[in-house]
């Protein structure tokens, strides 16, 4: 079977030819092939309950855009999703693949502060735009060269409304039970400041690891104190266990958390309420930046996602917005080169111009040469020049009979 054997020279020869062949056609493809958009999302690990819907959001919007003829004169959008494993070192390896092998034009759906901070220098070095869903302040600090865009409120913005809502409800002695992640930790200092400025007192403070098997000791420690309400910055995985412990312990303390952890949805279709049942969920308060779920474009988005009307889909709409804004800016600038097109992001999100929502509407308006002000899937999208999303009012909800009731804006 001599013909099957490969000697060293043939091997080196074919390897070199193969390597050369893989490099040569690239410049030719770059302007006519698909526009590649990478994603680094938490498909496994402690953020694993959010990732699949984040990726799906980008995929359904990309399909919608492609069905309407693509961008930049007919180029299709190709989404390449990688698993961040909710871990910054795995995210860096994923980013290397997306940047060096797939040669993506932008990365969207970058979830979590740690992974984002780890990937940020690579994206800047490659001149690729990074749209993230992480809350740590450091993400947009330093010279980002206009490439880093945060589609998420900062930690400070999450901490203050929760404190205000608790003060407004008359809670003066409160506790904190926080998960140790960059996102949730960044809310604590502004929360305490606001409570103390409002004449209240943080009586007890405890922290839990994201992957603890049980939270009973910490729940007992905090709820056993003389407190009338507890603030619980957490994700859905931890909050589900914490709420069960709270219910089992028969505590009268009121719980305040984030909508991403505890949404029941106005239709009762939220993951949290399906996991714990109506009795445990009863009376839990949660807050998030306002989301106009009644808008036509949000309803269309929900049906694309295959969700019932009124289901809260954490991070998904913001991820869809980040894709819409990136491709809108590409269309406006006429190129997929991030060092050029990201300069158009502020013009299409902050206006002045016609209020436009949804990716396809945005692209059509830009092609028609209109000035646009992108308003997003459910939430208005406007940026500060450093890439931070502008503050929005927070909606305050309470779960009653297994559905979310909005109590008003904070």
């Amino acid at each position, binding site marked *: 079977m001599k013909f099957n054997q490969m000697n060293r020279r043939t091997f080196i020869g074919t390897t070199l030819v193969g390597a050369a062949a893989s490099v040569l056609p690239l410049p030719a493809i770059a302007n006519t092939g698909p526009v590649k958009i990478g994603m680094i999302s938490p498909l496994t690990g402690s953020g694993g309950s959010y990732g699949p819907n984040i990726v799906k959001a980008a995929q359904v919007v990309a399909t919608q855009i492609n069905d309407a003829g693509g961008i930049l004169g007919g180029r299709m959008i190709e989404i390449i999703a990688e698993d961040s494993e909710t871990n910054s070192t795995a995210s860096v390896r994923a980013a290397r693949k997306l940047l*060096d092998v797939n040669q993506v034009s932008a990365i969207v759906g970058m979830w979590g502060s740690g992974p984002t*901070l780890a990937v*940020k220098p690579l994206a800047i070095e490659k001149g690729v735009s990074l749209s993230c869903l992480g809350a740590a302040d450091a993400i947009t600090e330093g010279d980002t060269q206009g490439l880093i865009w945060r589609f998420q409120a900062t930690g400070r913005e999450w901490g203050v409304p929760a404190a205000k809502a608790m003060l407004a409800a008359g809670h003066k002695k409160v506790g904190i039970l926080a998960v140790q992640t*960059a996102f949730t930790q960044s809310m604590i200092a502004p929360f305490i400041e606001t409570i103390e400025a409002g004449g209240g007192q943080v009586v007890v403070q405890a922290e839990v690891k994201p992957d603890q098997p049980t939270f009973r000791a910490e729940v007992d420690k905090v709820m056993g104190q003389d407190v009338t309400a507890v603030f619980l910055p957490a994700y859905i995985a931890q909050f589900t266990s914490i709420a069960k412990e709270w219910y089992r312990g028969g505590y009268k303390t009121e719980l305040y958390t984030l909508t991403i952890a505890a949404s029941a949805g106005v239709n009762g279709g939220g993951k949290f309420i399906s996991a714990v049942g109506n009795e445990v969920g009863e009376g839990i308060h949660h807050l998030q930046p306002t989301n106009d779920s009644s808008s036509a474009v949000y309803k269309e988005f929900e049906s694309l996602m295959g969700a019932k009307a009124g289901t809260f889909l954490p991070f998904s709409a913001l991820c869809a917005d980040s894709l819409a804004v990136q491709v809108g800016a590409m269309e406006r600038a006429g190129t997929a080169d991030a060092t050029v097109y990201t300069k158009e992001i502020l013009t299409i999100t902050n206006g002045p111009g016609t209020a436009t929502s949804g990716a396809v509407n945005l692209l059509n308006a830009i092609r028609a040469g209109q000035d646009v002000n992108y308003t997003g899937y459910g939430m208005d999208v406007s940026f500060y020049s450093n890439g931070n999303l502008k503050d929005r009012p927070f909606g305050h909800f309470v779960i009653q009979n297994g559905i979310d009731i909005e109590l008003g804006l904070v």
Partner: protein
Amino acid sequence: MIGYLTAILVVVLISALVALALNLQWGQAGMVNFGIFGFFAATSYVAALSSLAGYPLLISLVLAILTGVALSALVALVSARLREDYFAIATLAFAEAVRLFLLNETWLTGGANGLPGIPRPLSAYSSGQSYELLFFVMALVLAAICFAFAEALTKSPFGRVLRALREDDLVAATLGKHVLSFRIWAFSAGGAILGVAGYLHSSYFGYIDPTQFGAFVTAYAFMAVIAGGRGSNTGLLFGAVSVMVLLEGTRFLKDLMPFLDAGQAASLRLILIGAGLILLLIYKPQGFFREHRLRVDKGDTK
């Protein structure tokens, strides 16, 4: 593609260094170090903090190595008399203490936010793609030095005593070997290599946070050592490469299966990694290589 391969090779070198340390401590001396990620975290943070404070490459590297040696010596000193399983638990407890320290001493370590913007060494000499190659060469040189160090220890009489301690410390003690001091030296030698690994890790990633140092670091190191063949330094290089091929190769396999949704593809990837390791253990339970043995030439037996 070259940029990606260089990046992956640097990551392989770092994990091979962690495995090399584990091979000295566990493979040779029989000291099960489940808490290896704690030592790795401590040296990474020391390297990062000293780089951020403006110290040059060599000083940061030496500080990281000294931290590794000092912490390892301390842990070995207070717990080396524990039997194998209890020693493993003690190291795990140490690593957990390190993790809690890193999470809570925000003034020093940045807490859960970690330390961003760690300066990259030698960046004055090169940038972009060629910098990646330069860093790879630097990592390769450091790894080669550590490898030579570990090989020298393994083949020396010192290494022979370690293997004797691993098999039966009572026999070694009866022969007049001071068990405790040998164990402390072996553990500290591993700590020195972890110092190099920590320095490379923090300066390569440019950002560190506590989530980078979890039990999975220990798991990958054990996988590399077991796959390579316990006790064999050459083997663990192959082990570290095989683990990375499993971790990264599955990313490309997933790209060939567009009919799976993202969540399914990610789960399948983890299943494949697990299946790969199980197959490895079934078909190569002793690993790829044997540990170093003294060879006696025929002439010498006469």
